[in-house]
């Protein structure tokens, strides 16, 4: 806890100072700092870490989206990989069969995932808790089966040779180059999630999560906001999927979208902290690194992951983000008590 404090405090102070200059300043600074990361990674370590950074970026996009619908709106969806798959396959198909460049296929992939989000969301907004979890679990698996058995979607062979993006002769064909694309998308994704969640919309999501009836009575159109959360998270999943599809070597296969991937995403969100904006980011980074470092213990890896999920839920239900939040709350709490000594009603 105190170690965490030591890491967090200077960071928050710096952000505070920068924000005073311009609200985008800290974002730009972080972005600029992260841009040369591939060179640092390949210099310090090797290109494999650039690849890992790319994977982390994709996971971050997924978990940030998942956190919106799950952490903020409180809707337990287990079908996120399905939307991820839809984004990946549709973007890949558009560029493979219509020959469209990435800059066309990517938004199409995102949009198709968004539309899928609406289609899933419409029945789902009527469902609560367990029912929603069941319905979305079925959805994720159904999407995978559809891909697995339909030749157009790659079937068992997968979609091969999905073209890599290109802009003005600059081809994003290596992990280093693709990283620029991913880090840009990721930073935009995180920033937008901040914009959405730190607004009336985000507060409405949280209100729905806390108490649906109270939210509704206070003027929040619950079904509409639930659907909105669904669609936003679907857009994130679609973007992650499309970026994954075009990442070299440009290959997707239905077994990239199984329930195991969903478990990994869940673990990332739970570890980082459900309902904590940075939660998904923290979780994606930590889980990917731990996963990589334990690759050689592949027999015990899933067991370790499953067990940590159970233990986290039992003993640290709000994850790392929750611990950080807790720290700030405690500080403010003490501050408030000290500031007001004459006793409140």
């Amino acid at each position, binding site marked *: 806890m*105190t*170690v965490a*404090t*030591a*890491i967090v*405090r200077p960071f928050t102070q710096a952000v505070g100072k920068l924000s005073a200059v311009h609200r985008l300043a800290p974002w730009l600074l972080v972005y600029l700092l992260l841009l040369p990361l591939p060179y640092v990674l390949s210099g*310090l*370590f*090797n*290109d*494999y*870490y650039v*690849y*890992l950074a790319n*994977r982390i970026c994709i996971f971050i996009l997924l978990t940030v989206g998942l956190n919106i619908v799950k952490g903020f709106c409180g809707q337990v969806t287990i079908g996120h990989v399905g939307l991820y798959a839809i984004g990946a396959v549709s973007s890949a198909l558009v560029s493979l069969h219509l020959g469209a460049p990435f800059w066309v296929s990517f938004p199409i992939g995102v949009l198709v995932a968004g539309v899928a989000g609406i289609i899933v969301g419409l029945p789902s907004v009527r469902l609560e808790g367990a029912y929603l979890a069941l319905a979305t679990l079925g959805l994720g698996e159904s999407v995978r*089966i559809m891909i*697995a*058995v339909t030749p157009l979607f790659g*079937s*068992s*062979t*997968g979609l*091969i*040779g999905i073209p890599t993006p290109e802009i003005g002769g600059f081809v994003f*064909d*290596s*992990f280093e180059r693709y990283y620029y694309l991913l880090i840009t998308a990721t930073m935009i994704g995180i920033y937008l999630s901040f914009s959405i969640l730190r607004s009336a919309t985000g507060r409405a999501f949280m209100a729905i999560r806390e108490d649906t009836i109270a939210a509704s009575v206070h003027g929040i159109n619950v079904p509409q906001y639930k659907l909105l959360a669904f669609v936003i998270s679907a857009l994130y999943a679609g973007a992650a999927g499309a970026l994954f599809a075009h990442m*070299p*070597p*440009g*290959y*997707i*296969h239905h*077994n*990239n979208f*199984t329930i195991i991937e969903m478990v990994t995403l869940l673990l990332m969100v739970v570890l980082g902290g459900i309902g904590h904006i940075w939660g998904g980011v923290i979780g994606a980074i930590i889980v990917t*690194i731990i996963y*990589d*470092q334990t*690759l*050689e213990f*592949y027999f015990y890896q899933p067991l370790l992951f499953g067990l940590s999920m159970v233990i986290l839920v039992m003993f640290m239900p709000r994850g790392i983000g929750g611990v950080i939040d807790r720290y700030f709350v405690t500080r403010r709490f003490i501050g408030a008590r000290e500031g007001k000594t004459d006793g409140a009603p």
Partner: protein
Amino acid sequence: MTATKNRLIAAGLAASLVAGMATVAAAGEIRVGITMRMISENGQKYGQMVMDEIDMINKAGGINGNTINATLLNDECKSDKGVANATKLIFQEKVHLLIGSTCSSVSLPIVDVTAKAEVPQIIPHSTNAKITQKGSAWVFRVPVSGRYYAGVNAKYVGENIGKKIAYLCAADAASQNDCEAMQSQMKSQHGVEPAYAAQVQEKEVDFRTHMQKIKTANVDGIMIAALAETMARALTQSYEAGIPASVRRIGSSSASNSPVPSIAGDAAKGVFFAAAYAAADRRPIARLFNEMVRKRYNINAPDHDFSQAYDLIRIVELALGRADLKLDSGSLAADRTAIRDAIASVENYQGLASGPISFCAAPTPQCRDGNRTAVLIAYTKGGENYVTEVLARVTMPADFGL
């Protein structure tokens, strides 16, 4: 005070993490990376065998005095994990040679990774024809490509069994490929359409609906293309549904895996399939191999996945011996190219496999699909102590099925 201390601890943690991630590749050793599906019992045993063989080469003095350092990773038959493993092996472990994968859907994307990184890749067991059709100069396939199997099967089926064939194809990469190729071969060789064809799920458990339909369709043979366990279930259920033994059961190449006879039991009797190795092979080398596998890995009769992994190691040993390797810090790229060229120069290698394995320099399927001979094998007894017999041995022309 405490804040400084905490900051120090944090910095220390970060530093140790960094130190843990950076591994230094040692010079003077040949680094080989392996990515395989290490989940199934057989998968683990092939992996074990490959590692054991490499150990033995090292114990016998290595290759031209250099030891082989092998790293084995599990890809769970998932393409993204396979790509991650290949990337890790290539860039972090800086391997000279990549062996993998056992699954077509993993080998397919890895071909692009190795082609781009210019690392030779040699495939122990993936039959999908597209793998070598990508035109990579860095890929070599030891097993028989699916396109050859289909040709052999179709020829035998059309001439000896009949032309009214029902197909049950599972939705995994190898089976689907086998199934489609077989159907098109039946059409081109004998001019017949399937009497019944259904695609089932990869891990289907209940085939009764299909068997009922096939029973009423009155066919000469049933082709079941599926992974071992799925095939075993389908075989059992075909007898339960009352389809007589006179209707021949034709398996895809995964019928050679031992779970098929051991799970299907008596239902495995009479099933025949094309594969790259028959345990019933009478050659001395095969007999010795069977004994070795039985002793070391407690497997009654090794299937062709074992023989192919074994052949692969022997080919790798041969090629590494021929290659002129410097193995110092600056020679990685040159060594990789040398190994590639050495493998490409392997010609008429006669090991356990059904036929001679030959590679050549051109990045074409003709050059890179090493083995073109399939043996047709039938089970004469199912169960744990299954027995097979060889029906025929057929070599196909190099550009067959392209």
